[in-house]
């Protein structure tokens, strides 16, 4: 009996400590976001005088003003369009390539893969100028298509790397079964590999959503027509050359952050649940 109680007590303490640790980390993580949200409810005059977290009066109209002033409607849609296009594009292109690198044997396989890896490791700071000149030459400069292609290229290496690592670990039995059943390679990829790869795909989705959603310098440089601009460029209108309207800026930033949190919220279930449910061990 005593041993049982001792064991239970120890387990309870450990659990309590773990919870404390987790809660502390959670507070540290959430605090800056809270600060951002509460700052967005203040006014430009009070934001630096009133240092308390919760403002004395709540100015929810900042969100409406930010939306109007920033012309968010159009730019928000643009950002969504770019993000969805790029993510769909990357998933198809990189998963096909990663599957081939992992499962198929062909001449030049290693060389090509190393090329992609090298690209991941050799960033080109200032590549936006090079891309500008390139897009200009192929007449795709001031077009969404050109921008989307550039962004796909940017995320390609890391996505291929993530997916190949996952495919390598994946058990082959299901694929072999499908092949025996007469499935084409494309069919195996679509019907077997992709569903099993849901967790890795979810990571790839989140990674690329963040990249595309937060991108602004390439868009600013290659787009001349305002109607193509993404959301981040609109945010810059709140950071004046001289005057910054901080509450509006914070409101704008909060609006910008919410969709990404939503995407992550939807994806994170797959990341952790996906594998255990499709396990071959059952």
């Amino acid at each position, binding site marked *: 009996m005593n041993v049982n109680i001792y064991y239970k007590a120890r387990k309870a303490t450990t659990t309590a400590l773990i919870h404390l640790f987790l809660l502390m980390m959670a507070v540290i993580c959430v605090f800056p976001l809270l600060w951002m949200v509460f700052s967005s409810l203040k006014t430009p005059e009070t934001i630096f005088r009133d240092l308390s977290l919760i403002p004395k009066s709540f100015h929810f109209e900042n969100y409406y003003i930010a939306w109007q002033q920033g012309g968010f409607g159009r730019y928000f849609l643009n950002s969504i369009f770019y993000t969805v296009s790029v993510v769909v594009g990357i998933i198809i292109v990189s998963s*096909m390539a990663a599957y081939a690198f992992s499962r198929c044997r062909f001449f030049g396989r290693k060389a090509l893969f190393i090329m992609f890896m090298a690209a991941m*490791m050799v960033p*080109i*700071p200032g590549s936006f100028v090079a891309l500008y000149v390139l897009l200009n030459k192929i007449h795709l400069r001031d077009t969404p298509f050109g921008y989307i292609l550039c962004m796909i290229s940017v995320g390609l290496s890391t996505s291929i790397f993530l997916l190949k690592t996952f495919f390598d670990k994946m058990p082959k039995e299901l694929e072999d079964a499908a092949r025996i059943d007469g499935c084409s*390679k494309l069919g195996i990829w679509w019907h077997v590999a992709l569903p099993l790869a849901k967790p890795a795909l979810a990571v790839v989705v989140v990674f690329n959503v963040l990249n595309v959603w937060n991108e602004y310098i390439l868009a600013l440089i290659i787009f001349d027509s305002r109607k193509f601009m993404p959301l981040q460029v609109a945010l810059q209108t709140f950071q004046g050359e001289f005057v910054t309207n901080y509450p509006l800026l914070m409101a704008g930033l909060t609006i910008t*952050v919410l969709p990404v949190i939503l995407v992550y919220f939807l994806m994170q279930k797959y990341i952790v649940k996906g594998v255990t449910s499709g396990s071959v061990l059952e």
Partner: protein
Amino acid sequence: MKLKAVLENYVFVLPAVIIFSIFYVIPFIWIFHLGLYNWDGILPTKVFVGLNNFKEIVLQDPAWWQAMMNAGYITLIALTFQNALAFLLAWACDREIRMKNFYRVIFFIPPVLSEIVVGMVWRFIINDIDGANIINRMLTAAGFPNLVHNWLSDPKTALTTVALVHSWKGFGWGFLIFLAGLQTIPRELYEAARVDGANAWQSFKKITVPLMAPVMALVAILTILGSMQVFTLILGLVGGEFAGHTSVPVLRILTSMRVSSRFGYACAQGISFGLILVVISFIQYRFSHKAKQA
């Protein structure tokens, strides 16, 4: 039929290769060749200087190497502190505890915020005269008034503070990937070990670590690549290079491009940076390969 199978393989990689060649390889070659010139980025004429830019980087640019050391320092802190924290939290969340989903969402909020926001907010939290001085106030309240410090404006502590904020922002990724990895380890293995009489530490050493090795390698490489390229965060936290104390390679390249109007030199710096990253990644790959075999 054999031909069809072979062609099929190439079709799989074709879209990636095409996009990659056009939008990465071509710009890369352009920038690579520009590293051999002196060019201000505006004039139509360039002056060929061969490897002089690279010579200058190696021999006459102490600021560049200081930037490299700083980035290396930030990366080191990220590899150790940030990833250890991420692993610990992932392990904690892997057990059957309540509010697992809640934590999973909360811990990923820092990576979701853009670097500019993170820099701004943390600067406000840390600084005394242009911020809320929260860290110092907490230290005093906890009974350590002699630890109060100008974390961001003292050159000795500025870089470490930046590294810590960077870790704060980055650990969510490691947490996510580690958690996914931990969840793929079948519970039966732990059960079997417990039945065999192994305690928590032994099952950790014999089951968790070996099975998580590839995931750890993946996180390590992503951490290295991400941390070496940090720069927007530094702009938000300390405004700039702080007389070299918080300079990083990307900031140096942007300075060469915009302030000094030395586009060719900036390209040479970019290429050198890439080369160094490749070397570091290669070393890390070798290291994890050896560890895997152990």
